[in-house]
């Protein structure tokens, strides 16, 4: 039983990363109809930024946890204004290509300066050690991540459902034309929402730094899994993306633990689930049907 709890807990922790990234992708997609390929690159920049801040300027984890998301959000907003904005009126595939190009550029810039080897990042002293839950104990840092991510998702949910900004964002996510027709300036919220999504990716990156290998390629492979996650959850649905994030984390962890004879399972199970969802509910578990093609 304690083994099961352990696996479930680990699944929720890795699910928390999927959820944070999927949440950012979903709000950006909702507002701009842009699928941001560079989301993984910003996650990597968050982790790398935290590492560089600590190694070269002695800035501690807690400060990085604020500096990196804010800095990356500003960078994201600048990027949205500079290029992404120009392409939002065209087919969304162009922005997918654009952000793909940006991913290659960001990755190689970091690679040029710091090489491809992974850099260790020490767990902040306050969060080292483990927490005893009676039957079993968990590493404190992972408990912190899970709590933090859940809190963040709840906070975002609160903002989206209980505030005026949230109402505007939700309305323009689900029915942009109708929202405009009500006289709401949708365009005004586009840049901040993009920045917010990027900030979330950066935050996930900083959180990942102490428990995952920090290297220039850490974001790229992750983002493809997150794409599968949002296809499963339904990209149009913010709740669906978060739920699918945690769900896939769980399924992966259980697969890894109970099907350990098949090392492929934990890596490919997300794609198998995606195939099943495409067969059963092509629009995603929580998505709405697209206009029939």
């Amino acid at each position, binding site marked *: 039983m304690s083994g099961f709890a352990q696996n479930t807990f680990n699944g929720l922790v890795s699910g928390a990363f999927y959820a944070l990234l999927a949440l950012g992708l979903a709000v950006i997609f909702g507002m701009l*109809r842009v*699928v941001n390929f560079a989301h993984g690159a910003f996650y990597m920049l968050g982790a790398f930024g935290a590492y560089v801040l600590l190694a070269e300027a002695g800035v501690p984890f807690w400060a990085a946890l604020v500096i990196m998301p804010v800095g990356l959000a500003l960078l994201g907003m600048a990027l949205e204004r500079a*290029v992404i904005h*120009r*392409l*939002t*009126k*065209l*087919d*969304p*595939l*162009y922005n*997918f*290509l*654009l952000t*793909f*190009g*940006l*991913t*290659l*550029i960001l*990755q*190689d*810039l970091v*690679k*040029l300066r710091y090489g491809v080897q992974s850099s260790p990042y020490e767990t902040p002293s306050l969060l080292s050690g483990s927490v005893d839950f009676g039957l079993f104990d968990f590493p404190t840092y992972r408990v912190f991540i899970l709590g933090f991510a859940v809190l963040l998702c709840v906070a975002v949910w609160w903002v989206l459902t209980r505030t005026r900004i949230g109402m505007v964002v939700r309305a323009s996510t689900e029915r942009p*034309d109708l929202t405009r027709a009500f006289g709401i300036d949708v365009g005004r919220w586009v840049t901040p929402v993009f920045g917010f999504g990027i900030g979330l990716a950066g935050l996930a990156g900083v959180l990942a730094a102490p428990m995952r290998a920090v290297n220039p390629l850490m974001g*790229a*492979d992750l983002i*493809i*899994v997150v*794409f*599968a996650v*949002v*296809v499963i959850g339904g*990209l149009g649905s913010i709740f669906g993306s978060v739920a699918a994030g945690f769900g896939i984390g769980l399924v992966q962890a259980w697969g890894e633990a109970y099907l350990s004879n098949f*090392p*492929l399972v934990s*890596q*490919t199970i*997300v*794609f198998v689930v*995606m*195939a099943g969802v*495409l*067969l059963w509910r*092509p629009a995603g578990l929580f998505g709405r049907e*697209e*206009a*029939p*093609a």
Partner: protein
Amino acid sequence: MTNTVDTPTDASRSTPPSGLIAVARAPGWVRYALLAVGLAVAAWLPNGLYPAVAVDILCWALFAVAVDLLLGFTGLMSFGHAAFWGTSAYVTGLVAIHVGLPFPLAVLAGALAAAVLAVPIGYLAVKRTGIYFAMVTLAFAQMVYYVANEWRSVTQGENGLQGVPREMFGVDLTDDYFFYYAILPIVLLGLAAAWRIVHSPFGRVLVGIRDNPARARALGYPVHRYKLTAFVLSGFIAGLGGGLFAVGHRFVSLDVLHWTTSGKAVIVVVLGGIGTLWGGVLGAALVVRLEDWLSFSGFEAIGLVTGGIFVLVVVLFRRGIWGSVAALAHRLAARRR
């Protein structure tokens, strides 16, 4: 996917790319002249370039045309075509090493394997359109990558398949210069097949589906089945390129299945001109040549340059080379009239 789409929601109902129309309307002698020039350049290429680079250009030309068949003529952006290119590369390599078939047959086996793999992936992917199609194909290609990475007893994992033979009925093809001429007919056949598909009644239906899927369905065409057929044909042609690539390098590494390979194929097409078929060949030649030049001059961050090209092309040059030239020619012709 064209430049004339006004609203994002209108994306599925795009108008045909200008390039295709302009070239199709060009007078017969212009088309024959272009064909003659193209064939002449293909025949001369390994004399003007390092032959190994010329071989790469041929392989990538097939890959680009395969991607354009979907992107330009069916309106589906596959961001996972490395799955077919790479699967064929591995199967070709394995067949050539273990069975010892002459290389054209090994490549055929590889391309068939790619086409077989394209059936389930295509069947699932055509259930979604637009950006979702891109994400789904990308995800499945990543799955293929993981499988190849994990299945070390067959693929040799990160070491790659070494020593793929270039055997063809005892003819010595170790020199890249002669190998180029050995594969040129195969590549030309593949390109001709793509041209034939696009200009067949089947291809016309694909364009009809691209422009207005709802109308095509209303006219009684089974849209999903047409898309799936196009996907499998495209997978086969990409597989031809991938198999030749494996024999050309006498080595297969995991790179052939990586998502950057899928992305590169798409940008080659966009650079050449979406929906122009031959534009992809030009794009392939330029990108392969550039990458060779960069790696030869010791520049390490190739992604910086390809990524930069990606961004520039998408922001400033969406018609691509062929599309821009065709549009210009079209405008000049219209003025003269």
